[in-house]
Every structure is written in C-alpha cells, then in structure tokens.
C-alpha cells in the first residue's frame, strides 16, 4: 500500500528521521528542537513523562500535526505531511491515543472505511463488507468482536483492538502506536505484542509509547527518552531506574512509598449488601486511615461499585453507612454532603471542564459551602486555589489559566485538588494513575498515603496490580459485581493480586 514511495528498505535502514522538530501550542513548547529516528526491523519505544512531547512527536510523524520547525524524512525521503493521508502514502499507519473510530457505525464499516467491497452499480455490498471484516479480524487472531456491532456498543478495550486491527490490516511499513495498551487487558496486550514482534521480524518498523516499563522492556529493542520537549538519549538497553532518572531529571528511588500502619477502629465507610445494576450484595468496610484496594479483571463491576457509592448509579437495595450512620445517597450531591469524594478515571470527559480556569475547576464541588448567599467569594476562592495549587505543585502560570492548557499529569492533580478542597472523610479513587507519568504517579501515591494518615478512609481501584499490592492494607477482588475474595498485607505481591483475579474468574 505504499504507492509512490521508494521500495521497502531492508532491516537496519532508516525508517523515520525527525530532525530538530519544534512545536508549540499557545506559547507552551511541546517540542523544542527534538530529534528522533527509528530503523526498519526494530520495535522502538518512545518514553517520557506526560508533557514530554512523545505524543506530539507521534502526531507530527503520523501527519496529524505540522511541525513549526524541523524536518521529517521517511524512508530517506523528505516528507511534508499535511494530513494522516499523506503519511499513508509513505506506508505509515498510526494508532493515535484519541481513537478515530466512528461511534454510530459498525466495526466493519470502520475497518473498511473507503475500502468497502462493491457490488452492482459500484454500490457497497453490506454482506461482503461484514464478511471481509470478519476475515480481517480472524486473520489477526481476534474472534470475540462482532463486526456488525456498533462501535459505541462495544467496550473501550474492544475499540482499541479495532483501531489496532485497522492499522495493521493495511499492511504498513511503519507503524506508530501511541499508548496502545492503555485500555487493553493483559491478554489483548500480549496479542498486540505478538503482532509487533511479527512486524519486526518482517523487517517493518514499529514505534510505540507506553508508561508501563514491563511492556517496554519485554518487547522493544530500542528506547528513546524524551524530557520536557527534548530528546535525552536513545539506547539499545537501559535499566528502569536509569531510564526514570533520564525521564524525570531526578533520582526516584523505590517506586512505592512505605505503607503506614493504621489503628483498627469502627469503619468509616461501610456497605451492607449493596446492590444495583451490575452490583450484587456488596458488603465492605473501610476504617479511618485504612487503604483498601479493589481488584479483579477489567469490567467486573468496579465502576458500578464506585459510582453507586457516590450516588451516580442507582442502588436498588442495601445500605451505605458513613461513620456508622446510614445515609441515603441518591446523587453525587448527597455523597458530597455525606463526606464522600470520587475521583473518576476519565478526567477529560468525567472530571474537568477543560475550557474553564483552574480556579473554577478546583472550587466546583465546594461552591455550596463557600458561596455567601449564592455569591462567589472571589478573594477566598483565589486564596484557597492558590494554596492547593502550591501544595500539589500543579504547573500553571496562574489559577485563571484554562485547565485544558495543562499537561495530563497536572490536569489530574487539579482534579484531585478539587476533592481535597472538599475535605471528605471518604476518598474513592478510580484508576487515578492511568495515563499518568512516573513522577506524578509517585506524587499521587504519596498523596494517597497522606490521606490515610489524616484518618480518612481510602477505597481505590487500579488496573495496575503493583499499585494494589503495595499501597493497600487489604485488597478486595471483584467478579461480576460481587466481592469474591479478600487479600491481606503485609506480604502481598502483584502476582498474588493477579492470580486471585484470574482464579475468581475461572472458579464458576
């Protein structure tokens, strides 16, 4: 499919070369004279903190953005890309972080967009389209996705798979993957890595970004590190700590902070046989100062549990007790009043108001408390928000800056800051370190421990078993909306958590 481009080069030949690329958005330099190159026959990882510029570099190389300065060479030829389609002409395919699927159309329509099999009068043959899509999926080892299903009806992980299948099925010479595993479960991630290795062996070039070191180390044979919009080195081999030092510019030792002890006391958060849609008779308790993790395979009811606890999903039976007192929690407002806070997973669609100032985002949940007769206390607001921005080290020129201008990690901090301001007694954290860079993750871990130290009850869900194992006092394993087992620290390892999750699924 690489018409017009020079013939496929052999392994070792340069595939892409980005030379001294600069790109800025509204005065913020995403890339400053950054260079990057990758060769055929390799799987190349591009790593760095959020805001380091990796996504921007990939968007430029994939034709989604145009650089302000610098040159691109693809397959040795100078490339001026005005759209992803220009990149396609070079045999480049990209799976961007923001999926480019059409939600109201089916999987097969998405996979074969503009390449649908035609029938009489040159009109699209629907049946053939579905069959071809089915074949495409099967060829790549995917059997659980119905090509007729609408994109909006399938899970996020399935959508990611479809996007990946679409890119790979077009037989690219160069494949970019920006955070491809962020929504995938383990099995699907392994499937992807299998294809990445296959492409490497066929002499293609695969470039991907990830925040998970295990993936990077396992599958790539070259790593480039970005920091603050610049490239800081490319290596065939490097160990994790060294890489983290380069990524963050400072030494970060032992990833996880030490757990604090808590004195057993009457539970602060308690549920008795809480049920709702997708939730079955969940009874749990969290004491003040205790950190309880919730694990299990993806989609086993974690979201329903957290949203029901927060009043965003309806509970059909059972009760929720805060500090021993049963509370009727029928909306997030009720939950907030009862002293519960929920930091949701998708900060862009569920958490933040991107065009609005940092200040407005921070105080949204406490407005009822601080408003005087309905009027906003602007002076007090400024004080409160400046203080929390300093405390959390949010990088923003001032509190009136639109939160959409901040990097991902800083946005996450603003979201957490909103809830810190609400001073809840119960903190619900839903996958808050997803898509967050190493340094910010560490800050969030410290924060979680500090919350516990302040005698709050912390219930958190993470898709990262390491986090669950190291940060929690206890881990509850969920399956199909119910808590099926419980693991205790000390002595818990990530493997324990994962195997408990798998066992829970198999046992039935």
């Amino acid at each position: 499919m690489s018409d017009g481009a020079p013939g496929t080069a052999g392994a070792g030949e340069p595939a892409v070369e980005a030379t001294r690329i600069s790109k800025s958005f509204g005065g913020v330099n995403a890339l400053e004279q950054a260079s990057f190159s990758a060769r055929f026959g390799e799987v190349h990882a591009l790593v760095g903190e959020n805001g380091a510029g990796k996504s921007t570099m990939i968007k430029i190389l994939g034709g989604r953005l145009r650089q302000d300065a610098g040159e691109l060479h693809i397959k040795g030829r100078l490339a001026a890309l005005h759209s992803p389609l220009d990149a396609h002409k070079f045999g480049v395919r990209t799976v961007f972080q923001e999926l480019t699927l059409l939600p109201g159309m089916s999987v097969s329509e998405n996979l074969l967009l503009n390449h649908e099999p035609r029938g009489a009068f040159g009109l699209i043959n629907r049946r053939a389209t579905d069959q071809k899509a089915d074949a495409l999926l099967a060829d790549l080892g995917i059997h659980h996705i119905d090509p007729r299903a609408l994109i909006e009806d399938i899970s996020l992980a399935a959508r990611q798979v479809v996007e990946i299948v679409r890119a790979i099925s077009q037989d690219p010479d160069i494949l970019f993957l920006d955070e491809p595993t962020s929504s995938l479960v383990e099995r699907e991630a392994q499937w992807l890595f299998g294809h990445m290795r296959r492409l490497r062996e066929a002499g293609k070039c695969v470039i991907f970004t990830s925040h998970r070191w295990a993936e990077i180390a396992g599958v790539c044979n070259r790593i480039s590190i970005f920091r603050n919009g610049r490239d800081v080195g490319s290596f065939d081999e490097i160990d994790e700590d060294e890489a983290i030092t380069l990524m963050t510019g400072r030494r970060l030792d032992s990833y996880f902070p030490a757990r604090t002890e808590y004195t057993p006391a009457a539970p602060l958060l308690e549920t008795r046989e809480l049920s709702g849609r997708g939730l079955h008779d969940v009874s749990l308790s969290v004491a003040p100062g205790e950190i309880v993790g919730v694990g299990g395979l993806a989609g086993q009811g974690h979201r329903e549990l957290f949203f029901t606890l927060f009043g965003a999903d309806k509970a059909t039976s059972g009760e929720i007790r805060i500090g021993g007192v049963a509370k009727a929690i029928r909306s997030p407002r009720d939950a907030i009043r009862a002293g519960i806070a929920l930091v949701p997973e998708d900060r862009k669609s569920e958490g933040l108001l991107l065009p609005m100032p940092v200040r407005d985002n921070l105080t949204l949940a406490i407005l009822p408390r601080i408003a005087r007769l309905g009027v906003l206390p602007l002076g007090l607001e400024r004080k409160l928000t400046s203080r929390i921005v300093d405390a959390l080290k949010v990088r923003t020129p001032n509190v009136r800056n639109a939160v959409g201008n901040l990097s991902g990690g800083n946005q996450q901090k603003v979201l957490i800051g909103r809830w810190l301001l609400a001073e809840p007694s119960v903190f619900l954290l839903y996958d808050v370190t997803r898509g967050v860079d190493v340094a910010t993750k560490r800050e969030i871990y410290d924060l979680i421990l500090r919350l516990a130290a302040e005698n709050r009850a912390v219930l958190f869900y993470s898709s990262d078993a390491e986090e669950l194992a190291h940060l929690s006092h206890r881990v509850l394993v969920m399956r199909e909306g119910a808590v099926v087992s419980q693991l205790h620290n000390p002595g818990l390892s990530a493997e324990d958590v994962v195997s408990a999750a798998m066992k829970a699924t198999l046992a039935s």
Partner: protein
Amino acid sequence: MQADRNQASLRASRSAHWIGRNIGLLLVFAILAAAIVLYCAIYFVQQNTLPGNFELTSTVNNTMPLAMSGLGQAIVILTRGIDLSVGGIMDFTNALAAIHMQDNPLSMVVWTAVVLGAGALGGLLNGLLVGYGRLQPILVTLATLSIFQGVALRVLPEPGGAIPPRYTAALVNTDQPYALLYVLAAALLWMALRRARIGVALFAVGNDEQSARAHGVDVVRTKVIAYTLSGLLAAAGGLCLAANATAGDATSGNGFTLTSIVAVVLGGISLFGGRGNMIGALAGAFVTTMIVNILFFAHIDPLYQSFYEGLFLIIAVVLGAALGGLLKRGRG
C-alpha cells in the same frame, strides 16, 4: 466471551443488528400505520365509509412539499448540521416557478431545471459557508434564510403567477396518487446514495468529523454536497408547493423550516447526526399530514391545531427515547 462464531450465528445476528440500527425507522412506520388506522376509524364514524382515492390523493399531494424538504433536512442533519433556510428556498422557488412557468412542455422542463438549479445554488451557498467558512450551520442558515426570503419577495412581491394545470397534473396529480412515485423515487435514490462513497462520507462526517478526516473523507466536500442536496430537495418541495396552490406566494414556504425539522424528528433520526435512516423523514412527513387529517375529521377546533401537533411531537419524542433506552438496556 472468546467463543468462536460460525456463519450461522453471523446470519442470525444480522437482523438483530439491523433492527437495532433502524429502530427509529420501524417506530415511525408503526406510528404511521397507527395514524392511518385511527384516521380511517374516525373517517368511518363520520362518513360511514372508508376514505377513498380522493382522500389518498389529496393526502399524498399535501405531503409532497414536506416530504421533499424533510428529506433534504434529514441529509443535512445527518452531517450534524441544520438547515434553517429551507423555508426561504421554498419561498423563492415557488415564486420563481409561479411567475415564469408557461403552459408549454419546453417552458415547464426548462423552468423546472432552473428552479431546481436555483435551489441547489442556494444550498451550495450554505454548504460553502459551513464547509469552507467553518461557520456554525444554525447561524449560516439563519442568515441565508433572511437572504432567500428577500429574494423571494423581490421575485414576487404580491401573491400571483400561476402554475399550468398540466404541470400540476404531472407533479401532484389531483386524480390519482401518482405523486407517490416521486416519493418512491426519492427513497430509492437515497438508498443508492447510502451505499455510495458519498453516503458513507455523510455518515462519517456526522459521527466524528476529525476521525472522518483522518481516514480520507473530504469533510468539506461532503458538507457542501449535503447542503446542496438540501437546497435541491427544498426546491423540489417548492415546486410541489406551487403546483398544489396553482399560484405563487413568496411567504408560503416559511413554515417549512420548522416543520421539516419535525418530520425529521418524527422519522426517528437523531438531531446529533451520524445515525438513522433518512427514509424516516419521508414517513415523518406523512405522519404530520395524517395528524392534521385526524384533527380535522375529529372536528377539533382548527385554532387549537398547533396545540395538538405540539403535544403529539412531545409524546412521540419521549416515547421514542424511552423505547430506545429500553432496547439498549435489553441488548447490553
């Protein structure tokens, strides 16, 4: 979960998927059927006989302007836009036809072409402003509505002109419901369009412009085509309007701006774009006419007609949403 599927289950699920995607269409046809039944019942009670050819023909003819403009509106709404200038285009096309069309075949053919062309041009203007100008559709078409209304007034300051009876007979024949053939033709044309590259492009743009662009869809061209088609269809509606009325009126198209949107909504098409079967708009137009017929034969005070139409619209929309929600929950 990870079960392998075979050909049989592939076939079995196809009808389920089709139903899921076209639930709006099924619903509007159900409503249409119910409306027809109710109408027949009320008519029977009044006249002791079932409605006949005359009623059918006049219903079809009365629906033609709305059906054409509704289909055009549906295509624009599919791309996540809206066309408020529909009424204005119908104004100046019916005025143009009434003034210029003479009672000879050449004149009729030529002026049909000119009028359709004029409507398409109006739509093209909208499309260029929305597509290239990147202006919001509601605002552009709000402005062009004003412009087109002005043009209509210039063409025909006072109601007048006449459409030759032969033309009326050809377009909206008063003896037989031949106009249904035009409806059928429009429906077939849409179905062909749907399976052509432009059809896919329309849906893609309505779903997610950025994604569509990233996959080679010419978003600007698609939008231009959508609005041009809407203008063309509105012009067809204007011709039907003139043919029905046998005289021209530069303001008779005004109401169609909003009623074309009603036809689209009744047709089960999402106002957010990217989904739905555009044929629903044709059915929605017929439902609208049926409601008027029912109200008439039920001797509802005509002054209250808008009230019942409004009430019906709310009920239809709320019911449709409730049903859609139930179905999603059932499948999910």
